[in-house]
């Protein structure tokens, strides 16, 4: 029983294992006390519902990585302006049923999702986002979109500066370009569009229009290099990538990783990204979130967590990328802390829970791939910046501290191992002291971001993670809701709010003069596979020298 561990469990963020937190009953969504604990080599979470019994679920597949990640956690950033009505009480006492954002929340919005539509051109069996036949259509008006953006820009102490227009399939909206322009008008710095790529592939000017309207990045689903692993857009992705290449718009590939389905192609996806670095900026793996009721055997068959994805990367890249190359998201707080101390202003700060995500950068020099962490002493650099931030906070002169940094920074880079022409010291000085990020931006063509973000489900739900979430949804009623409450408790958030602002399918058809059935995409795989763009896209250099069989066989 979970209760057995209570007397010895720690409490408070970043506490030792076993650790007290809160979770939900996957059956009735009752809020329950829970324990995160070590079980052999892995970390599990356990809770007991008085009605539905005990649930024990895999939390992180490596104690060693959990412990390293735990030490990289960052303190929270209290929100000065909340988005729950004060007169209705916004203490967050009943988290996660009080979203959002409430006084209890400890991270600002780093990326806000705006759902453009719940219509989709695909009908993937596992997807819970899109409107099935006859279901209401949710499409906020441009006026509502503008209000939502203003709401985000009005967050304090740090206004949201990055949005993702998502769906359904956002490119189905005829006024998507207007939405992007509104985001820019309202002062949003970074705009990304989350798409399956089908419309990008076939509408010749769409990528260009999206880019010219102000989009920075396409966030494109890409579950593998073979058709078996990626039935969603295996045939269309090469054409979409080509259109983005022509439009000069970067892409982040987003594979959802499911054990036994596509986890054997994780290395091949990284290799695919490295082969297309002129347009692909990163790969952001998302270990599957098991929504809906699912028997334990099936969950164990499909469940994969961040450490296992990282270990698969190591195995499938011939040991080139190792677990030590990955840092949890909040570890970056050291840089923010320093910049805040240096400038005296609150900055973007990724204070998300350490178990939510991890990342690294791979440097490509000709055909040689080196994780940046293998020639930069990241731990030493973060420690040094933290120390300097504390000195600044203690009243030391910022120019004196700046000079010390100039002198010391190069020492964190291993000249023997660093690639030729790589002057990180100069780049960091420009970024940290002069706030000139151009040289870092130029690195995009040499560096590939490899990240992962594990969204929760009712089985592994941890309220401590929710209260530090920095990926939010903004909705027309003014609330800004963490991803893992919006989608894990849809009956009181996503579905309820969207129903409130939706119209019936029939009404949508009358208003637009269109037929919903016409949205659906019909694939001609043979024709697509015969195209030169397709063939060229999957003719990949084996950069990790793993052999053809490990690269992902596209003929499967």
């Amino acid at each position: 029983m979970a209760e057995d561990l209570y007397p010895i469990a720690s409490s408070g963020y970043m506490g030792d294992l076993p650790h007290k937190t809160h979770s939900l009953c996957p059956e009735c969504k009752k809020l329950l006390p829970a324990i995160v604990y070590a079980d052999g080599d892995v970390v599990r979470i356990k809770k007991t519902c008085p009605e539905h019994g005990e649930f024990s679920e895999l939390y992180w597949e490596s104690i060693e990585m959990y412990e390293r990640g735990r030490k990289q956690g960052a303190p929270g950033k209290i929100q000065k302006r909340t988005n729950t009505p004060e007169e209705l009480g916004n203490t967050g006492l009943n988290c996660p049923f009080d979203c959002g954002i409430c006084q209890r929340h400890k991270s600002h919005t780093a990326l806000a999702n705006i759902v453009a539509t719940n219509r989709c051109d695909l009908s993937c069996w596992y997807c819970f986002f899109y409107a099935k036949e006859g279901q209401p259509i949710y499409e906020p008006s441009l006026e509502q979109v503008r209000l939502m953006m203003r709401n985000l820009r009005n967050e304090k102490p740090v206004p949201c500066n990055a949005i993702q227009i998502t769906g359904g399939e956002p490119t189905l909206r005829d006024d998507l370009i207007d939405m992007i322009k509104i985001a820019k008008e309202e002062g949003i710095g970074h705009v990304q569009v989350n798409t399956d790529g089908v419309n990008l592939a076939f509408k010749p000017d769409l990528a260009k229009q999206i880019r010219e309207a102000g989009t920075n990045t396409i966030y494109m689903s890409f579950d593998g290099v073979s058709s078996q692993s990626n039935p969603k857009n295996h045939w269309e992705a090469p054409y979409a990538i080509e259109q983005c290449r022509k439009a000069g718009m970067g892409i982040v590939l987003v594979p959802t990783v499911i054990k036994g389905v596509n986890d054997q192609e994780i290395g091949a996806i990284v290799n695919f990204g490295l082969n297309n670095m002129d347009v692909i900026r990163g790969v952001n793996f998302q270990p599957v979130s098991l929504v809906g009721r699912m028997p334990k055997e099936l969950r164990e068959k499909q469940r994969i967590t961040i450490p296992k994805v990282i270990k698969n990367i190591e195995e499938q890249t011939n040991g080139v990328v190792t677990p030590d190359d990955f840092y949890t998201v909040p570890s970056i707080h050291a840089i923010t802390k320093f910049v805040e101390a240096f400038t005296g202003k609150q900055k973007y700060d990724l204070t998300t829970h350490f178990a939510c995500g991890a990342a690294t950068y791979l440097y490509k020099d000709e055909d040689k791939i080196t994780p940046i962490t293998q020639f930069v002493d990241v731990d030493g650099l973060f420690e040094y910046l933290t120390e300097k931030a504390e000195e600044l906070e203690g009243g030391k002169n910022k120019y004196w501290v700046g000079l010390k940094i100039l002198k010391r920074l190069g020492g964190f880079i291993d000249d023997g191992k660093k690639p030729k022409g790589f002057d990180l010291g100069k780049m960091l000085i420009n970024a940290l002291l002069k706030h000139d990020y151009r040289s870092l931006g130029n690195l995009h063509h040499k560096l590939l971001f490899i990240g992962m973000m594990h969204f929760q489900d009712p089985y592994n739900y941890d309220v401590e993670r929710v209260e530090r979430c920095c990926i939010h949804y903004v909705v027309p009623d003014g609330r800004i809701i963490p991803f893992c409450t919006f989608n894990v408790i849809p009956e009181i958030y996503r579905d309820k709010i969207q129903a409130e602002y939706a119209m019936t399918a029939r009404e949508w058809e009358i208003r637009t003069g269109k037929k919903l059935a016409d949205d659906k995409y019909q694939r001609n795989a043979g024709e697509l596979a015969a195209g030169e763009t397709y063939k060229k896209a999957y003719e990949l250099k084996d950069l990790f020298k793993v052999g053809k069989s490990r690269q992902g066989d596209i003929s499967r």
Partner: protein
Amino acid sequence: MEKVRIKRFKISGMKDLYDAANMQYRLLLIDGILLAKIDFPKEEGVIAYAPEELKESEVIEAIKPFGAEDLSDEERSYPELLEHTFNLKKVQKPQ
């Protein structure tokens, strides 16, 4: 939606914070209840509901099983409530 009603009530039978959170969840499941807050330490609750979708008598029926005592019910302008509570009012368009 133009109008919203705010119902406030007292609750004395809550066992603990979990009990209060679960009551809040149960209330939020009801169509027409837009927002709900059960404050365990203060032993009170408040609901914002859409009068077009839910009658006051239905709201009272919904809170009764939790031992709630009705206190007040007032009508408010929904757009004004949103503007006021969700920081939409004093927004300045960036230059």
